[in-house]
């Protein structure tokens, strides 16, 4: 994988602007090796706590996650993407401790998850974490309402309160009229809405979604992505989102980690990945993406000319596709401004047209 330090300069413009938000979940050199428990344990101990890829192969074991380091910041949507079998499900299950990682460190805020007792873990999951599953994982014997109320009931919240909260969540995902229905009477998209409502009922701070929209057809998927972004604007959760669809990733991600064979190849904003792919594998992913959808004004801008006659302002993080129409219609350049509306550069019509021409 690319060294964290090598990635730093790329993400610099983002971090320079504001104080970086706190880290919610962080893992360092995380490994998950599949196979007989004792065998794996011996292997790791022999190589001094840090598994050695050659030794793993020799033992005929397979590693689902190799040496992964990730920081999920408060309030961000952190997307992990990769092809089928690249280890996405494995890593998200390690991060949520559904699978016990073989080696490495894992912290939730400043708590060492690997040192947590089963009881502490139950408490954490009851109050701080939520998860949405690819195939919904709704309980077939409970109505929509009871499904959503389930995590609260498990905690011992009384029936009236938990149902009230559940109703609120169901309204949030727009399923008010279906509360008494059972899951098998709902379409896939509706079922996943229930899954989302259920995972939000406990008001978790950290939200895991494992390919939540992959089982849905393209139109519904898009609708659900919009819905998801709308929710996030209201809720500001810290999110780990798994997908194998790069278009989905760039639509919703603040940052993306690309996985290949259990390794994280690159972490960066959608723009970073497109503009500065770390290797051929990442480049292959990003090739089909239209650059106008990921390039931001900040990347495209030239230095600010205070004397020039500006036609208007563009936010530094706006993407080309969002402002192209405005800029192309004008002969004069537009000023690029930061969050506090201070000018930091400008963009000309020619620059935009050249991006659009590239596709």
């Amino acid at each position, binding site marked *: 994988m690319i060294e964290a330090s090598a990635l730093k300069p790329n993400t610099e413009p983002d971090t320079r602007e504001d104080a970086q938000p706190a880290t919610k979940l962080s893992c360092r050199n995380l490994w998950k090796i599949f196979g007989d428990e004792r065998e794996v344990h011996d292997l790791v101990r022999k190589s001094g706590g840090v598994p050695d890829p050659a030794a793993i192969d020799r033992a005929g074991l397979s590693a689902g996650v190799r040496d992964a380091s990730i920081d999920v910041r408060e309030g961000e949507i952190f997307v992990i993407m990769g092809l089928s079998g690249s280890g996405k499900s494995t890593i998200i299950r390690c991060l949520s401790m*559904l699978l016990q990682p073989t080696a490495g460190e894992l912290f939730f805020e400043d708590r060492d998850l690997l040192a947590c007792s089963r009881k502490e873990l139950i408490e954490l999951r*009851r109050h701080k974490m939520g998860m949405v599953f690819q195939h919904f994982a709704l309980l077939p014997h409970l109505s929509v309402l009871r499904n959503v109320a389930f*995590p609260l009931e498990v905690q011992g919240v009384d029936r009236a309160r938990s149902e009230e909260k559940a109703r609120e969540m169901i309204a949030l995902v727009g399923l008010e009229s279906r509360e008494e229905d059972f899951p098998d009477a709902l379409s896939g998209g509706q079922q996943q809405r229930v899954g989302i409502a259920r995972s939000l009922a406990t008001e978790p701070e950290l939200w*895991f979604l494992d390919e939540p929209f992959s089982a849905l057809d393209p139109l519904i998927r898009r609708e659900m992505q919009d819905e998801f972004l709308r929710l996030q604007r209201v809720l500001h959760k810290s999110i780990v989102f798994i997908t194998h669809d790069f278009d989905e990733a760039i639509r919703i991600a603040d940052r993306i980690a690309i996985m290949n064979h259990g390794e994280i190849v690159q972490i960066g904003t959608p723009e970073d990945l497109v503009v500065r792919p770390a290797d051929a594998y990442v480049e292959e992913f990003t090739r089909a993406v239209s650059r106008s959808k990921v390039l931001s004004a900040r990347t495209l801008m030239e230095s600010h000319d205070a004397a020039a006659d500006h036609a208007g302002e563009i936010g530094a993080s706006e993407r080309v596709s969002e402002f192209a129409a405005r800029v192309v219609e004008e002969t004069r350049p537009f000023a690029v401004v930061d969050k506090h509306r201070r000018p930091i550069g400008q963009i000309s019509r020619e620059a935009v047209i050249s991006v659009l021409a590239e596709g």
Partner: protein
Amino acid sequence: MSITATDSTSRHPAIRSTTLFWGAALAGLVVLFVVASQFPVLDDPRREFLLPFARWISDGMDFLVDDLSFGLFTFEDLTRAIAFVLSLPLLALTSLLASGWTLPFSEIEVAPLPWFAVVAAMVFMGWRIGGGKLAALMFASFAYLAIFDQWQSAMITLSSVLVAVPIGIVFGLGLGILAYKHSGSERVISPLLDLMQTVPVFAYLLPVLVLFGFGQVSAMIATIIYAMPPMVRVTIVALRSVPGDLLEFGDMAGCTARQMLWRIELPAARDSLMVGVNQVVMLSLNMVIIASMIGAGGLGRDVLTSLKRLAIGDALEAGVAITLLAIAIDRLSQAFANRARMKRPKRSQDRTRVPLSTPAGFVAILLIGALITALAPSLAIYPRALVLDTGPFWDELIRLINVHLYDTLDAIKAFLLIWVMIPLKRLLVEAPWMAVAAGVALIGWRLSGLRLAATLFAMAAFIAFTGNWEKAMISVYLCGTSVVIACLIGIPIGVWSAASARARGVISVVIDTLQTLPSFVYLIPVVMLFQVGDFSAMIAIVLYALAPAVRYTDHGLRQVPGETIEAATMAGCTPAQILWRVKLPLATPHIMLGVNQTIMMALSMLVITALVGTSDLGQEVYIALTRANVGMGIVAGLCVAFLAMTADRLIGAWAAERRRRLHLA
């Protein structure tokens, strides 16, 4: 090119070597046959070399009953206590349904629930749970009980079933959960279940009889032991097949282990668990007649005593009553399971339309009935004058059939006996055990390996050295002929059923009914037509064991992938070619499982056919039972189990081999 070349060169030597091997093996066996017949130890160690297993077991049993003590209480106290606890609910139900009771501290007699109230309550329940059709079935079944004068016996049977079923379900569920949660305990439970399913019921009637005495409670305990294993198995499988993401969800919701079990795993497995419940119900009713041998009253005893008197009409009426009871309870429990699955959208409307809940209505009807009889006691009993008795009709019918068809039936019987059954019996009985065991072990070795060969040989040796060889061979011959005939009839029916949807509709109803009938009932018409003897036994076994052959063939043919058949069609195969060259080969492993099941059912029918005068292991068990000789019964039971296991292991190994060759994984 090169592939086909190597293929053909390598195949011929292979074929030649197999032929050579079996040729040599056959010659060896013939030599062994001749030589072994000269030595009693190798032929049939009847007296001299017997191992007294039976006595050891009997002594062990005596020790349990007479001497074993846990300090504060003896083993006998323990069994008495268990029997007492179980007798309480049984007593309550029998008093309520059949015998009536005396109010405590007074002399006031309270009559049992009147027949019309029970019929009405059952019809009401059927209507609420399954609609008009089920209500009609309930009415037909329960009215039959009253009209044909089976009421009293039926209520006794019903009360013991109503106690045995919930206990069987709860224990089965508990053991299943235990095995699922702790793989260690599964290693103990699973082989026990295997054994319990292959040892004929009669064999464990004996220890139950010795430990708990003759009576209704013992019968109930035997019923529970018999009916529980499928529930355990179904529970394990059902819990294992709960989708993994539901478990992950449970973890993420912060469920404790207990919440996981009760709120996620069991409810999600509900539909499959209902299959187990249904099995417990069916098996409990299957046991009704058998259980009457150790003291269950009711319909079972009626059938048994009528059968012994050869009063066919009476046996038939009581047998039909058991069948109707089985069908009624089975359909009721299935409808209940379906309703649990489908009630969802309708529930709220239902509630508002009929303010009365099903249980409340049920109890209300019974109470009203009780009140009416308290005022007019004469109504409690179904009027004698209205009872129908078909006994004379059946007796007359049989007389007529025997008068007119005797020659034909006798000719069929004589032909099969003289040309097939008796020669086969001779051959098997005369073959020295050493030769047979060696042959079986050889096949096992070729199919799977040394381990199987050793197991098979050891089981044969056990049978020989406990003195049961000849009886075992008679069992093999009886079951063997029956299984072959059952397959000759069942497999074509299965093929037919797989080929035509309409045929399938009819066939599946018939097969369902055959499987609902308690095994004893098969004896009745057979004895009516063919008198007692091996031939009747065979026919009864064929009838009883037919169902799996049909089922599995049908299922095996249906699961051949549609694409494969389309490919064959496009390759220009005729329907017959598709059947012979594509479907049947691919379905063979399934069909063999069906044959396996057929063998198991045939063996379990053995003991029952002992009633019609066979002289096999079944008879041995039956005699042991009448003499309460535990050791003898258990040893003979184990012999039957070993025969079953031999067939099971051989077929299992063969099917595995076959599947590997077809690359069916």
